[in-house]
């Protein structure tokens, strides 16, 4: 068979059919979500599925903003995500510079502290951590979640690995030129480490934005909740309002979708590089 001047073999055709079929299955839940978000609750489960509602109910997207403080949840999550990501990038790259390029007493011991915990699941110490935060009076504050997520071994480790690959001669040359260590970090290391920084940004962004158990343990006041647990609260309160729940879910997904599509390349490169390291 020939299409547009190119021979299409049976093999290629089979690949296309398979790929398209899998993609349809993978995206089906999203399509169903979108379609249900434009329906009345009683029409959501009508079978056969009416994928494009004949009378789309845009009102769902108006109602959700008044039924739950969705805007506040989005604001809370954005605030947490931005602060955590900024702190993570700043402190990790700062510490990683010392571990990669400077010599000082107890360097290996301190670094071992990070290494030893990198494989430690957060779930193992989430309870003592909660008790500690409670002791500090941080229960039901956003500060608790910031402290919990901003200083990770993963961030320091990732940045250090990258800085190790930058030639030390570069730093030495800068020292001879009279730069101090802070200047070297700011004007040489940071600009060179853009790939590692963007990987760390995306990983931190997605984990913080999508974190579930952390906010669930720490935030019980409605006005502090994040999108994830706010959405869960909404589902529990309006369990039969399928159309509204779906509309809220679509809105909750949009920020992630935008960030993901715009930074996709870095994301894929970041994931791929973690694999190559192993």
């Amino acid at each position: 068979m020939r299409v547009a001047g190119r021979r299409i073999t049976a093999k290629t055709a089979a690949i296309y059919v398979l790929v398209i079929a899998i993609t349809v299955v993978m995206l089906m839940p999203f399509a169903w979500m979108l379609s249900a978000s434009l329906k009345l609750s009683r029409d959501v489960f009508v079978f056969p599925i009416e994928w494009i509602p004949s009378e789309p109910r845009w009102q769902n997207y108006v109602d959700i903003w008044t039924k739950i403080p969705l805007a506040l949840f989005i604001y809370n999550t954005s605030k947490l995500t931005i602060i955590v990501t900024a702190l993570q990038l700043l402190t990790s790259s700062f510490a990683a510079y010392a571990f990669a390029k400077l010599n000082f007493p107890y360097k290996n011991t301190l670094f071992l502290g990070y290494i030893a915990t990198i494989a430690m699941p957060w779930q193992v110490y989430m309870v003592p951590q909660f008790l500690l935060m409670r002791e500090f009076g941080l229960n039901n504050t956003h500060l608790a979640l910031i402290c919990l997520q901003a200083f990770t071994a993963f961030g320091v480790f990732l940045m250090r690995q990258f800085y190790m690959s930058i030639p030390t001669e570069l730093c030495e040359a800068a020292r001879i030129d009279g730069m101090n260590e802070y200047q070297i970090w700011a004007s040489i290391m940071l600009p060179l480490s853009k790939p590692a920084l963007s990987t760390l940004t995306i990983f931190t962004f997605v984990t913080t934005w999508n974190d579930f158990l952390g906010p669930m343990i720490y935030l019980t006041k409605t006005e502090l909740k994040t999108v994830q647990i706010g959405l869960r609260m909404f589902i529990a309160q309006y369990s039969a309002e399928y159309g509204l729940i779906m509309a809220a879910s679509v809105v909750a997904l949009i920020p992630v979708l935008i960030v993901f599509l715009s930074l996709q390349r870095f994301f894929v490169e970041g994931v791929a590089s973690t694999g190559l390291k192993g």
Partner: protein
Amino acid sequence: MSISNSAIATNRAPAAPARKAKVLSRRRRKIQDALIAYSFIAPNFIGFAVFTLGPILFAFVLAFMHWDGSNAITFAGLDNFWRLFEDKAFISAFWNTVIYTAVSVPATLACALGLAILLNQKIFGRDFFRTAMFFPYVASLVAVAVVWNMIFNPEMGPVNMILYTLGVDPKDMPGWAADRHWAMVTVILFGIWKNMGYYMVIYLAGLQGINSELYEAADLDGANPWQKFLYVTVPQLGPTTFFVTVMLTIQSFKVFDQIYMITQGGPGTSTLVLVYHIYNEAFISWDLGYSSMVALVLFFLVLAVTIVQFRRQRED
């Protein structure tokens, strides 16, 4: 002799304080360098020590204590440890975690590898397809879990409706999250769907690292596609597969969010897993010591996998 001696002496006299000053300044320099280095580390390390290292040490102590979070802590010895063997909920949580891991690790791995091979071909719109496969991984869990529950709703959900139109008897219809025999299947399917795109990306990187000359050599030897997969692709992907297996195993040991959202650990204890049990014992029963003991079980499971990984890396 004396002249030269005095000459030496006079020569030495001004040199001694100079050297002393040099040693001092070198020492001062060293201290200054160390202080600069510590100033780089401090912002992260202090946060890390207080909020991560401290709680980790506390977790190991707490596992041997009785505490409800408000009254005094008392020493429990091995009480919490022996209790593990009598706690039916813990035993099911342990086995459910093992079953979840044993099924979802190979299944996710196979799906991810299959997808990677498929999307490593030069096809039109490849980037779009890759993005589509990856998107469930970044999508907010609560949003997708609630859709999943609706789609797999036993009475009204489209999946069972489709099964019905295909002629499945309503009596044999899977009850999915509401059925103790199907709940684990539902949770595992969700996990595969959500995570396989991530591991597909890792496999794609692995595939791109294979030297194409190997395939050309295999072609010359008259190998068919299946043989090429078996004798070139699979062995060449060995390190990637190992890495993916380790990551997936650790992720599976830690599974919680999706179970909380889809089955709440039920029906009964049919999908109760370790982290869920830790959560329940701590924040529902406020049995903090016992909860930490269960957490140590999780720790040792993860540690075992990490040791295997470390040994293997050392061999390479």
